């Protein structure tokens, strides 16, 4: 019953693209669609690896011209200094324009209140939403990937948000072919996810292929950490550790980069990209499962934050 099964290895056929080339081409197409259809796009840039890859793709998409977007960073105030340094150096290097929405400012002004657990990730939603409104951004690029989390697996590439930045998963537009529908009313905006179809391993393989520089905390280094909820958190001024949480020096690296209060490190000896890639390929835990305390709050933690306007 089997009709034709051609047993050719793909690399033998002249017009095959590697999976990284396919993903790169798709992401570049998405950036150019936004450049062609929106007035005021912005890239969310945290200095984390996904946003670094996004910026790299945007640079390639418009070369030799400049990237026609500015950058926005929602700074929790608990960011790793190495990452902030990387962020500022990158902005300088490419002559980009960076706006920073500061969670600390909101806390200082009494608009937001520190949570009892000290976690600031959920507090980013209000500064993000207000920055989008204030600067009238109509397209907001995020580095979210569908493989990260199950609520993200049902996210569109172009995801419409109302004037409160809210996401309604039941009212998403079906996305067919490569035809992205970015129509929106004034005050609404579209979140755009060029890395939707990338996996963590794709991101790392692409970083290696393109020779992209990363903040050093992605590679194994010695650091003073303490254990909370089964994760290694960095000891620091942000509020950890408590008296009952002993600090120790360990060889660790970060698999994701976010707020220090809820981003866990993993034990690692991987000091090179090749070693990191080998480690990820062998890992039996997902990126968020291993390193994000905020996703462990409930089965629908990410969905709830997304509905409210989170990244």
């Amino acid at each position, binding site marked *: *019953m*089997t*009709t034709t*099964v051609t047993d*050719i290895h*793909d*690399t033998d*056929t*002249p*017009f*095959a*693209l*590697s*999976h*990284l*080339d*396919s993903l790169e*081409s798709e992401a*570049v*197409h998405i950036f*150019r*669609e936004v450049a*062609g259809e929106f007035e005021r796009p912005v890239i969310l840039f945290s200095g984390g690896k996904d946003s670094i890859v996004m910026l790299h793709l945007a640079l*390639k*998409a*418009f*070369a*030799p*011209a400049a990237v026609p977007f500015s950058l926005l960073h929602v700074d929790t105030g608990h960011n790793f200094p190495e990452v902030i340094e990387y962020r500022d150096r990158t902005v300088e290097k490419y002559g980009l324009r960076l706006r920073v929405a500061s969670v600390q400012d909101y806390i200082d002004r009494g608009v937001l209140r520190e949570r009892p657990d000290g976690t600031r990730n959920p507090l980013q939603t209000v500064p993000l939403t207000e920055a989008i409104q204030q600067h009238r951004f109509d397209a907001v690029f995020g580095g979210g990937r*569908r493989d990260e989390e*199950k*609520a993200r*697996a*049902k996210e569109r590439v172009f995801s*419409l948000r109302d004037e409160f930045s809210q996401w309604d*998963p039941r009212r998403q537009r*079906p*996305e*067919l*072919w*490569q*035809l992205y*529908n970015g*129509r*929106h*009313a004034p005050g609404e905006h579209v979140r755009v996810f060029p890395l*939707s*179809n990338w*996996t963590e*391993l794709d991101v790392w393989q692409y970083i290696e*292929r393109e020779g992209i520089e990363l903040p050093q905390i992605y590679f194994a280094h010695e650091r003073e950490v303490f254990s909370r909820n089964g994760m290694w958190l960095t000891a620091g001024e942000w509020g950890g550790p408590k008296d009952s949480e002993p600090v120790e020096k360990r060889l660790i690296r970060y698999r994701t980069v976010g707020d220090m209060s809820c981003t866990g490190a993993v034990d690692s000896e991987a000091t090179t990209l090749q070693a990191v*890639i*080998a480690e990820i390929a*062998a890992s*039996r*835990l997902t990126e968020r*499962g*291993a390193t994000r305390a905020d996703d462990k709050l409930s*089965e629908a933690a990410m*969905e709830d934050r997304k509905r409210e306007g989170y990244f």
Partner: protein
Amino acid sequence: MSTTSEQLADPSATTLLRFATAGSVDDGKSTLVGRLLHDSKSVLADQLEAVEAASLSRGQDAPDLALLTDGLRAEREQGITIDVAYRYFATPRRRFILADTPGHVQYTRNMVTGASTAELAVVLVDARNGVVEQTRRHAAVAALLRVPHVVLAVNKMDLVDYAEPVFAAIAEEFTTYASELGVPEITAIPISALAGDNVVEPSANMDWYGGPTVLEHLETVPVSHDLTACHARFPVQYVIRPQTAEHPDYRGYAGQIAAGAFRVGETVTVLPSGRTSTITAIDALGASVDIAWAPQSVTIRLADDIDISRGDLIAPAGDAPATTRDVVATVCHVADQPLAVGRRVLLKHTTRTVKAIVKDIPSRLTLDDLSQHPAPGQLVANDIGRVVVRTAEPLALDTYADSRRTGSFLLIDPADGTTLAAGMAGDAFASVTKAPAAEQDDEGWDF
């Protein structure tokens, strides 16, 4: 730390296959998907633990693998899948993007969405039931969306004693039906998703079957073909003009090649203006190349400084599509509000969006038996119908059979931006009167 060498295959040698699965929970689709993910080590420990915990709290004994893909609270609460879920897994040879489409709610809309970008569709049937109404519907959607490869997975072979005649009869009935609809390649595979027969590992229970397992087939089905035989198409997305001291006169047309291949030195026509020029350079994201092909994102430079902007189409001078303002197409209606004759819409085709009006809806199609219902007046959610649309400006439109990318379009509500319908220009199905072999060669699948 041990490394899985299989995942660390040379990334430049692995290709990408986008495929869709169709079938209901009853056919064992979740089990098949779960096994593909699990056996390719794509379900990780914390995900499996979460699924086990959630299954237990629902009083289920075994982990319900559907919970892996049911990501939204409403889905978990109601025990149904609402939306297309995208899953990712890899083997040493390929990276896979699986569009897992639910079987019940918004069925047609979801399967059409999943199939629109798929190069392969897996249709599941229960060996005990054979080809049923739903199977014919799945075959029709795959044929309508011109998915180049279809796999018929005859599941639950363990429940029919792994009997070859059962498989052969189902495979023949399906192959005949799908071939008549114009599906160019059909591969039937007898499996038991639950027992693991012929999903990843060859079955010890079906010596009579000499073909590939599902995964072997997914790994080896060609994702590329001779693109030089296709109509080359390049919709312009964006004009790159740095206007810097270093690049004072650079003017490049950025886009993703929708079909075929383009070469430096080639004479091209720009539509809708009809002006011609010659390609002087192709910039492939940092590298200057002599030839580029679909689906590469490139920047094309031309010898003449002619007026080109977003929405224009660059095509070989001898092989440019005719432009038209009258679009005859098959649409799948995807919105809750109906689409009626006289409705004013926006039509989005490649990188061009134009005003349009629905002039006629000559018929509605029932996918179960392919019966035509003339003059339905309107289409509602999940209807498939023929439409005639008049556009305000000319479009360089191919037939969908020739080019999936430049023969497809969306109809959009101009008031609130809702995506109303997904359109495919030209005939709905490949004609049964054409010789299938010749037709296969002529198909201009663009990937």
